[in-house]
C-alpha cells in the first residue's frame, strides 16, 4: 500500500508514512497525469493527486507555481480562458470531469468555488445567496427562504445580517462579503468547495473567522484551499501539497509536511529559506 496520495510522477514513489487517520476518508477527487498549458507555457506538469473526502487539503507554493491553476482545473473554470490546453484526467467519485459527456454547469454545482477577491453581485444579500437556486429554477418562496437562512447560518453570517437581508451586499465589510460568497456557494449544496486564497485580502479577525468556518465546513464538505499563508495551511488543513514551477513537489499529511517533509525543496520553502 503506497502512493495513496500520489507524487510528482509515476516513477517517483515516495511521500508516504503513517496515515491511519487519512485512510479513513474516501478519495473524492483524483488527478491523473494532469498537464495544463497556457499557450506554450507548461503550467501544470504531470500532476497526480488524491484529494480526500470531508477533509481540508491545502495547496501551497510561491506565486506562479500552479496551485491556483490546479484549483481551477477541478471545477473546469479554466475552460473560460482562451488558449488553455489540458491533458490527463480529473476524476470526481471515479468519473472523469473532462469527459465530453459531462455537463460543466452541473459539475460546478457539485464543486463550488470561493474566490480570492470577494465578489458579491451588486444585488441584495438575499439575492446573492439565492442566485444559484434561481438558476436551477427554484421559485418557491418558503423553500428559498429556508435555504438562504440555512446557508447564511452555515457561513456564520446570519446573526450579523438577519435584519438586513434585502439591503445591498456591497455594504458589507470585506470579511462579511467573503462569508457571503461562501454562503452563496453552500446554497446550491455542493460536495466540494474550492477556495482560492479566501482570506488573503482580509484583516486578521476576519481571517480567523474564515478559518474557523473552514474547520466546521470540513465536517460535511471536501475542501481544497489555496493559500499563500503557510501558518494558515498548517492551521486549517489535514493534507498539504507543495507546488513549485508547475510540479507537485510533495503531498502529505499536513503535520508531516510541516514537521518532517520528505523533500529538501519543501523544507526550504516551509522554513522560509526561499519563496
Amino acid at each position, binding site marked *: 500500500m503506497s502512493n495513496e496520495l500520489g507524487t510528482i510522477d509515476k516513477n517517483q514513489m515516495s511521500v508516504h508514512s503513517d496515515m491511519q487517520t487519512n485512510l479513513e476518508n474516501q478519495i473524492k477527487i483524483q488527478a491523473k497525469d494532469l498537464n495544463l498549458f497556457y499557450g506554450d507555457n507548461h503550467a501544470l506538469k504531470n500532476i497526480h493527486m488524491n484529494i480526500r473526502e470531508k477533509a481540508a487539503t491545502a495547496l501551497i507554493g510561491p506565486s506562479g507555481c500552479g496551485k491556483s491553476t490546479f484549483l481551477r482545473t477541478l*471545477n473546469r*473554470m479554466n475552460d*473560460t480562458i*482562451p488558449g488553455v490546453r489540458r491533458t490527463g484526467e480529473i476524476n470526481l467519485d471515479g468519473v472523469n470531469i473532462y469527459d465530453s459527456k459531462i455537463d460543466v*454547469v*452541473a*459539475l*460546478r*454545482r457539485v464543486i*463550488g*468555488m470561493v*474566490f480570492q*477577491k470577494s*465578489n*458579491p*453581485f*451588486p*444585488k441584495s444579500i438575499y439575492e446573492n445567496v439565492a*442566485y*444559484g437556486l*434561481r*438558476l*436551477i429554477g427554484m421559485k418557491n418562496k418558503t423553500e428559498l427562504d429556508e435555504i438562504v437562512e440555512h446557508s447564511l447560518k452555515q457561513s456564520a453570517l446570519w446573526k450579523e445580517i438577519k435584519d438586513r437581508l434585502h439591503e445591498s451586499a*456591497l455594504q458589507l465589510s470585506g470579511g462579511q462579503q467573503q462569508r457571503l*460568497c461562501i454562503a*452563496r*456557494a453552500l446554497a*446550491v449544496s455542493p460536495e466540494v468547495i474550492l477556495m482560492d486564497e479566501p482570506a488573503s485580502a482580509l484583516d486578521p479577525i476576519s481571517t480567523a473567522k474564515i478559518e474557523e468556518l473552514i474547520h466546521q465546513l470540513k465536517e460535511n464538505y471536501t475542501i481544497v484551499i489555496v493559500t499563500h499563508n503557510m501558518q494558515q495551511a498548517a492551521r486549517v488543513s489535514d493534507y498539504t501539497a507543495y507546488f513549485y514551477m508547475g510540479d507537485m513537489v510533495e503531498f502529505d499529511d499536513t503535520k508531516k509536511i510541516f514537521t518532517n517533509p520528505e523533500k529538501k525543496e519543501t523544507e526550504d520553502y516551509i522554513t522560509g529559506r526561499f519563496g
Partner: protein
Amino acid sequence: MKDLVKKKHLFNSEWFIEKTLLFAGVSSVLIIALIFVFLFKEAILFFQTRPPFDLIGITVFDSWEEKNIFKMMWQAVNETPKYSLIPLVCGSFLVAFPATVMASVFGIGAAIYLSEIAPNKVRETLKPSLELLASIPSVVVGFFMLAVIATIVQNITGSKFRLNAFVGALGVALVTFPIIVSISEDALRAVPKELRDASYALGASKWQTIWNTVLPAGVSGISAAVILGFGRALGETMIVVMATGNAALVTGDIFSSVRTMTATIAAELGAVAQGSEHYYALFLVGAVLFTITFILNLCSEIVINRMRQNLRM
C-alpha cells in the same frame, strides 16, 4: 546650496502651460454658456409680439370658431403666420422615438454579442466596421434614404407618402446605432470579470450569466447609451430634412410626412429676415430643442455616475 534656489525666469513656462491647458478645459463650458445665453436671449424676443399661447396654437382671445385643431400649425410664411410648436415637437418625437427603439434593440444586441460572445478575431473586425458606420456623413445617409430606402418602404407598406417619419427614423437609427453600441459595450465590458466568474462557479450557463449578472450590472450604462442616442436622434438634421417629407402635421401616424424641429430651423433660418417674428420663432424652436437634449444628457450623466457607484467593489 545655490542650486536649490528657485531660478528667476523672465517667463514662467510652467505657469503658461498650466493656464493654456486650463483654458482648453474650460472652453467647452464657456462655449456652451455662450450659446445658451445667445439662444435664449434671441428666443425670448418672440414674446414681444406674440403671447406664449401661440406656441401651442390656442389663442385665448379668438372666437370659438377659430379655436380649433387647425390652429396647431406651423405656418411661418403666411398672411397670418402661425407658430405652434406642437407639430414640430410631434414630428421630432415621431422620428426620434422609433429611431431610438430600433437602434437600441439592435445596438444593445450587438453590444452583448461584441462584449460577451464574439471571439476576439470577430470583435477585432466588427468593432472598426461599426465605427466606420458612424463616420458616414449624415447627408449621405439622408440621400440614400431619399433615393433608395423610401421607395422600398413604400413598396412594402403601401404608404401614402413616399417620404415619411418612418423612412426618416430608419436613417436616424442608422447613425444612432453606433453610439448606442459603443457606449453599451463599454458598460458591459466594465462589469468586473470576478462577477462573471462568480456566476459561472455557481453553475450558470453563459446566457444565464449574461442575463442575471452582466446585464443587471451594466443596466445603468446601457440606459445612458439609450438616452444619449435619443438626444442624438432628436438633434439629427440632415437626414430628416431629406427623408421625412417636411410637412408640419400633428399626427401619430408613423407613415405620415412630418417636419422636425431641426429640419424647420435648417430649412427656414437661411431665408428669414433677421429680427423678424419668424426669426425669433426659429430661435425659440432651437431653445426648446437645446433644453430637451440638455436635460437628456444630464440624465445620462447621472445614470452613468450611479453605475460607477454600483460597480465599485
